[in-house]
């Protein structure tokens, strides 16, 4: 699908203008210093302004040129994000094995028809590998199970 404007660069340009401006304004609360003795704000403020400037350089031509429109694949994105989030929450509270099983199952939902039995086998196998390689093999202090809600 081609559209009359290059929406990829329009979105990117607008995000950069917002982000760069915010970055500069936020940086201003630190001390600027002088050119000779630059404070912590000097470099970040300059970078923020340049980011916003390049946002404009990206946005303006994109308004007058045909281009594409981003087509995200929502299902894989949502499934992967939730899987990682669940792992981050689970690892401290329940331990490595439950976190791994949950991660595998949620990640499998990224596909339209996740196969049940292979996913279950994979979850168990990955949990076993994780404990053997990381906890036992490399000695990373990650208990297989814990109860710390």
């Amino acid at each position, binding site marked *: 699908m081609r559209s*009359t404007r*290059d929406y*990829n*660069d329009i979105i*990117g340009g607008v995000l*950069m203008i917002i*982000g*760069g401006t915010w*970055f500069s304004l*936020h*940086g201003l609360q630190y*001390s600027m210093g*002088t*050119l*000779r*003795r*630059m404070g*912590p704000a000097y*470099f*970040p403020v300059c*970078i923020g302004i*340049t*980011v916003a400037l*390049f*946002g404009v350089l*990206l946005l303006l*031509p994109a308004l*007058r*040129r*045909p*281009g594409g429109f*981003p*087509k*995200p*694949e929502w299902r*894989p*994105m949502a499934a*992967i*994000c939730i*899987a*990682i*989030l669940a*792992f*981050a929450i689970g*690892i401290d509270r329940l331990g*490595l094995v439950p*976190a*791994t099983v949950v*991660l*595998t199952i949620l*990640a*499998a939902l*990224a*596909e339209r028809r996740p196969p049940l039995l*292979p996913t279950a086998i994979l979850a168990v196998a*990955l949990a076993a590998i994780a404990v053997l390689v*990381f906890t036992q093999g*490399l000695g*990373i202090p*990650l208990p297989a199970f814990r109860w710390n809600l």
Partner: protein
Amino acid sequence: MDMFANLALGFGEAFAPLNLMYCFIGVFLGTFIGVLPGIGALATISMLLPLTFHVPPTAALVMLAGIYYGAQYGGSTAAILLNLPGTPSAAVACLDGYPMGQKGRAGVALLMTTVASFVGGSLGIIILTAFSPALAGIALSFGPADYFAMMLLGLVAAATLAQGSPVKGIAMVLVGLALGMVGTDVQTGAQRFTFGIPELSDGLSLVALAMGLFGVSEVIASINRMRTGQRSKERITFRSMVPQRNDLRQSAFPMLRGTGIGAIFGALPGAGATIASFLAYAVEKKVSRHPERFGQGAIEGVTAPESANNAAAQTAFIPTLTLGIPGDAVMALMLGAMIIQGIQPGPRLVTEHPELFWGLIASFWIGNVMLVVLNLPLIGIWIKMLAIPYRILYPAILLFICIGVFSVNNNAFDILLVLVFGVIGYAMMLLKFEPAPLVLGFILGPLMEEHLRRAMLLSRGDPMVFLERPISAGFLMVTTALLVWAGMTAVKQQRQARRMAVAAG
């Protein structure tokens, strides 16, 4: 001669059992992920960065480097057998490698790519060995202003010479520079952009950033696209790999030409292995007396690019090791690994850590020999690997990413960072922004700020110092020329896009 003493020191270091083991792990993993499409050297190196906290610096760098050049060997296997490039730089190998496979000469193609890889890799290491100490010697006389100008040139070159729009490349470098500012300001101790989150006072974690941008986003994008799990119909026997005399004769000069092209483009920032391999193919087609053979299974169309990308993978270490300027994202991660280990990259590396520098180079020789062994007798194993479906691979990749990043600080906060950067990386992929310049900017950002401040302090706040010092002025002139060229390209592209729109109606 001095160089032999240095190499002896290096081999002594590289043959230490621990380093030998990590070298093997590196090239083994490199071949594995090189063979498999859908997971690249960048994602793997970011996944293994956390491991480097637990092993000595030399072993860590030897392993990470092994993944990088090992992937260049493996990349062509899937290209020849399935017409699917295992790594971006192996895309050229599809053009003539797959037709060779169709004609029943897949075995010869696989053997010749390994030979070509070895030739390119070995010559690349010789160039690396010969030029690095001299370059480091020159760079020792650089002042802070020269460093700042050189880093600026490196970033601009990487952003404008890489694929895609130069404006977007520079934009990504700038975003990377901004992200690099997060954390404690080294000179004043001020907390910048930390929002009172204690985990951010050490800065954003490079491991989390790289894993999110290269690992998670790649997984999200590949799930619906990846069609691995195909079995190659070909049975590769030793007999089928024996090349004819013609094959060797036709490949000799193309391999040398490919190596030359690869060596030059590998050492330049931003160009790298992929561009080198495409260029080597184009050159072979141009000089050939029978250009019509290309695309039909011409052996030199496989060997020249293969030598080029392997030579480039070795010479890419020249600016990284001697100047501390990474040419691409992989080199940026290598630099990050050194900084994690407390080693300051730059010209002093050769003199202050000779065992690391020469040990790393010696490990390249050993690694390349290991790769020949891994790729020739064991080719059957790699072909079987291609039958693993992506459905099994991606949950494992995600798991390794999560555990790896957690293990760095034993902190679940870093996993959330991976998640954030994964989403950002996927959005960038959709909007067609390259993540590699961002990582370069992220790593060089704090160094640039430090050199800028030091230069300004030394010159008592006079910015003319950048033009008065000849080295810095030279770098700035090249930078300006690149920017002008990039601007002209952007204007031309804009006109073209609009003209096409008018023509389309």
